[in-house]
């Protein structure tokens, strides 16, 4: 065994977070999509089988995300302690919402009645919002704490939900109107816009070089596969090109998958810590103090 040496720069500069791995990322990935799907299902679908399928899928997504988290936390058998801090913790709030969501969602699956479907949809949105706020509350990760990250997480959750709904509709026998297709296009456009706003804001306000490098690196792929191609597919459906169901399914998958790609990137690869900063370098005996230093941040020495 060789005892590998640490690199001094890694100790000083912002570094990728190592505590939330793919399991935690899965909660944001699947849970957010599930929340969005739940919302759109409650609004846009009336056909019972499709409704039931979509809600069931949403619940599975959310449940699988939460299960992954349960496997990640250090003390899973104390998981119920998560309910102890509703006053400020968005994780507590997410957990509360999840309870209500599964109650309402369960009843909605069983009854397919608006009395339960609509509250489930609202709770889906609330779940999505809670998750966005969980990320944004983390002051230690500049890419998350940026005020526009909430909008981004919600926008992508809603788009992914729309994408999944498109898939459900594509494989079900339910008929769907072009309004749904138009809605999906709107979601795609909004997400693209919010993403640009988020990235622009992050660059303008400053973030660790590593985070910007990762996010800028995915931008072209995210735009093409998550927005341009699905939009073209939907346009093709609207234009009456044969293979309506297949095209719709493809568009939905691309919207959802690209959102997942974005969130995985955000939660894992772009999640660089704040790092450290010195507002002044100390005077060493005589002479002047040195300028500020913020290693790993563009434009700052270090």
């Amino acid at each position, binding site marked *: 065994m060789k005892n590998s040496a640490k690199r001094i720069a890694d100790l000083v500069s912002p570094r990728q977070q190592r*505590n939330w791995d793919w399991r935690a990322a899965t909660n944001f990935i699947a849970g957010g999509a599930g929340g969005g799907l739940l919302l759109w299902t409650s609004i846009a679908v009336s056909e019972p089988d499709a409704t039931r399928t979509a809600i069931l899928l949403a619940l599975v997504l959310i449940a699988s995300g939460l299960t992954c988290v349960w496997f990640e936390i*250090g003390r899973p058998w104390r998981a119920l302690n998560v309910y102890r801090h509703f006053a400020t913790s968005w*994780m507590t709030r997410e957990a509360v919402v999840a309870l209500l969501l599964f109650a309402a969602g369960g009843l909605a699956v069983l009854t397919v009645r608006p009395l339960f479907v609509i509250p489930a949809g609202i709770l889906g949105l609330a779940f999505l919002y809670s998750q966005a706020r969980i990320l944004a509350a983390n*002051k*230690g*990760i500049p890419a998350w704490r940026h005020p526009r990250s909430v909008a981004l997480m919600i926008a992508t959750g809603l788009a992914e939900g729309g994408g999944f709904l498109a898939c459900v509709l594509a494989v079900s026998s339910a008929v769907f109107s072009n309004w749904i297709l138009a809605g999906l296009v709107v979601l795609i456009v909004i997400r693209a816009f919010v993403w640009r706003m988020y990235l622009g804001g992050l660059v303008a306000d400053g973030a660790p070089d590593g985070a910007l490098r990762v996010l800028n690196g995915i931008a072209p792929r995210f735009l093409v596969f998550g927005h341009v191609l699905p939009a073209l597919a939907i346009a093709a459906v609207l234009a009456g090109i044969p293979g309506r169901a297949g095209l719709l399914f493809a568009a939905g998958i691309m919207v959802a998958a690209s959102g997942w790609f974005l969130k995985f990137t955000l939660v894992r690869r772009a999640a660089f810590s704040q790092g*450290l900063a010195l507002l002044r370098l100390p005077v060493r005996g005589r002479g002047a103090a040195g300028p500020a230093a913020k290693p790993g941040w563009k434009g700052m020495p270090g």
Partner: protein
Amino acid sequence: MKRYVMTIDLRRCVGCQTCTAACKGANATPPGVQWRRVLDIETGEFPDVRRTFLPVACMHCANPPCEEVCPTRATTKRADGLVAIDYDLCIGCANCVMACPYDARSIVHEAHYAYGDQPLSSEAVRFDPARIGVSMKCTFCVDRIDQAAVTGRTPGVHPEVTPACVNSCISGAMEFGDINDPESTVSRLLGETQHYRMHEELGTEPGVYYIWDQS
């Protein structure tokens, strides 16, 4: 109302890691876990180069983001300014780790020892299973601070109720005490010097002051 803070005089620090090692000893942290450490930061380009040593740990913020996000209330801000963790409540969700802009927290999911699978006698006698799978960080040596209330001694003045890192510091860079006491060493030092707190723009109101010059 007491508010315990630490001052770190960057003019003095030589980056020797004595405080790092003393902390590891005092708190029996496992290999690789450093509740405090001293960073070695180089700036500038040859030949105009500076190297600065920056001791970092939990800042015991007055507005701690870790406490806000903690879903279990394991992390709490005490009346005396210390940010504490109740290991028996913590579920190890790591939200606080992400919330801390000072990289001060860590979670160890399984026991690690200095030499392989078996603990040394010194590790075995102090092994605490309660700290596996939960969030950990610098406590300002809270046991000692609590002892001060019992013995009537003063943290920052009497070593037995002062954090181990401060006691160990061989350059005299670190002081500890009640900033609300105008007579305390920290109050006096802060009155005489220019200083800053790290990442103040994030609104955390940290309890560690870095001194960089005289007033």
